[in-house]
């Protein structure tokens, strides 16, 4: 019998090939081979690689170097801090507070931190810190000293909002600034300034303002004179004083106290040797007769 086996020219697949083909056409096997095996290989290879510490160290070091290289590129290097809006004496103070060692990479500059540091300075009202073209710009708006406040701790300079700019020994430096005193007076700086501005009569004789009882002002004048103002209607009182001065020439009179605390019953107290009281009716004042 001649053999039937003539596999060389046989177009039929062998049994093994046929079975493999069927296996390949099985959806589960196909999925495993297409996705499961590659994923498993990646996981195994990476796991064996990263399980050795020297490999991870090399990776860490090269990553750090890569970062440093980028950070220290000249494009990111800052060489200058430009501070605007302060005088020379403040400049060094601001610079010292910021405490930045130049040159520095812009990645290492914490602008928010710098801003908060600068704003902690007493004489700084607001500060904008930003970087433009490798320069740190610090735009500062300074607090403007407007008034002296003498309290139990000494002499302080206040800005218009009553915030302390600093302690001073004496008034020499800002001798043109007015003076206030008394507890809680720093919270009424605007009122005090208003009194100063609208008080034409005694403008050259004022020593300062004293907050009395935390509710009203006394204007202290030279020669131990003072004007006691009410808690309210200060503007009206000041006008009244001007008007009274016209008719009664108050400034030339020898008084110790002008008492306007009760606006219906203004009182002038003389110095001790001449006790004399002039009573002024408010009605007359309103009519403009006096």
């Amino acid at each position, binding site marked *: 019998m001649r053999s*039937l086996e003539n596999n060389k020219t*046989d*177009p*039929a*697949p062998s*049994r093994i090939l*046929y*079975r493999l*083909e*069927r296996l390949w*056409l*099985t*959806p589960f096997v196909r999925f495993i081979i297409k996705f499961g095996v590659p994923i498993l290989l990646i996981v195994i290879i990476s796991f064996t690689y990263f399980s050795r510490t020297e490999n991870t160290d090399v990776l860490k070091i090269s990553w750090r170097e890569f970062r440093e290289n980028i950070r220290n590129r000249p494009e990111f290097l800052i060489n200058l801090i430009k501070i605007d809006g302060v005088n020379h004496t403040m400049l060094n103070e601001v610079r010292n507070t910021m405490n930045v060692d130049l040159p520095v990479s812009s990645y290492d500059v914490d602008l928010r931190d710098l801003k908060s540091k600068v704003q902690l300075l007493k004489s700084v009202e607001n500060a904008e810190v930003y970087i433009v073209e490798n320069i740190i710009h610090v735009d500062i708006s300074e607090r403007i000293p407007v008034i002296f406040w003498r309290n139990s701790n000494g002499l302080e300079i206040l800005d218009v909002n009553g915030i302390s700019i600093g302690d001073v020994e004496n008034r020499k430096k800002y001798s043109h600034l007015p003076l206030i005193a008394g507890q809680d007076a720093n919270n009424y700086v605007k009122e005090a300034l208003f009194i100063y501005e609208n008080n034409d009569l005694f403008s050259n004789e004022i020593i300062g303002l004293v907050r009395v009882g935390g509710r009203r002002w006394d204007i202290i004048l030279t020669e131990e004179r003072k004007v006691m103002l009410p808690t309210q209607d200060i503007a009206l009182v000041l006008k009244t004083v001007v008007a009274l001065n016209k008719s009664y020439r108050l400034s030339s009179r020898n008084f110790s106290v002008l008492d306007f605390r009760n606006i219906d019953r203004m009182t002038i107290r003389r110095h001790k040797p001449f006790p004399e009281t002039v009573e002024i009716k408010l009605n007359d004042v309103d009519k403009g007769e006096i």
Partner: protein
Amino acid sequence: MNNLYETQRAMRRARKVAIQRGVIAVLDVGTSKVACLVLKFDGVKPKDPEDTVGSMVGQADFRIIGVSTIKSRGVKFGDIDIIRETERAIRTAVQAAQKMAGLRVDHIITCFSGGKPRSYGLSGSSVTQNGMVDGGDIANVLGSCEVPQYGSNRDALHAQPVNFSLDNKNGLLDPRGQVGKNLSVDMHLLTVDSSSIEAILHCVKRCDLELAGIASSSYVSAISSLVEDEQEIGAACVDMGGGTTGISIFLKKHMIFSDFVRIGGDHITSDISHGLQIPVNLAERIKNLNGGVLATGMDDREAIQIGGDTGDWEHDKRSVTRSELIGIMRPRVEETLEGVREILLSAGFEFLPSQRIVLTGGASQIPGLDQLAAKILGQQVRMGRPLRVRGLPQAASGPGFSAIVGLALFAAYPQDEWWDFDLANKNYAERSIKRMTKWLRENW
């Protein structure tokens, strides 16, 4: 017989599993070619599963996603002759179809034309159990059929209830649910050689596939090439294959008779080969290109080069006229058709209400066959092509593919057969033992 009953039941279960999984392959093992289709069931089911009269019932719910046709190997007269060769052919076909489908196929339904099919008409009757006919009654009446002695080396391939009658009502297709007492049945039994089935089972098993059904190819080619009214009022389908010519007669949508003529297209080829002294493959080529059965005067002048490469000039430059070729082919075709006529006569085909004869199969493509067949078989002859099904490529829609297409329809929508009904156990003791073992298995 009982063994085959269980085998057939197992096949039905396998078919159910395959349909649930959505993929099944059908395989036609023919003498000249092996064709394989992969069917995908889309899950488009008829709304009512009992509704069996929809316009596209059995065809609408599947799609062909893989096709392969290869030359058959090791098959003679429709029977597997060399098992290992046929196994390889099946493997090649299945692999190619699987590859086209991109899916692995586990279940296969196959058909073959060999095994010397012989059909028997059986009848039986029984009394219904409780007045109304149910599945058990049908199993009973089917079991009561007198089975002829068809031989110990043969097996039933199809056992289809064709007609039921209940009391005096006749012609029932499905008596279930009807009220009556005496139920009788006509059954069509088709037997084939056991060795043919064994060979097919062996081949399929060697290909790691599970057989989900087996059918006679003359039956399935009739399913696809007879139109509905032909199946209803009576027609014969002549499937002219390579090795055999199968005949099946349909009435009332059931096959009532099947037989075969042991002559096919391959015989014509071998006649040409013998007559013209040329190799078989050249003979096949000449048959396909120039063949015919009706000679005209023109054919005397048409010379066909039949050549050869022996080196002998005289021998290599031979030519024959087409009428000579027709002279060789025609007697064989006539012989086949006469065989068909005899079978139809013996089957009593002329008593059917309609005598339509449909010629299909690869060998039916011979030019002029319809006129020759009309002379021999009568005027009601037509050429048949398979039904159109979704996804079938043009190349596989010729008459040669009516068996495989019919098998696809059969796979999707099989006819109820004897083994679809639960056999009522006559032996009560046996049943109680079964129950006991079942109970033990469930509870321990």
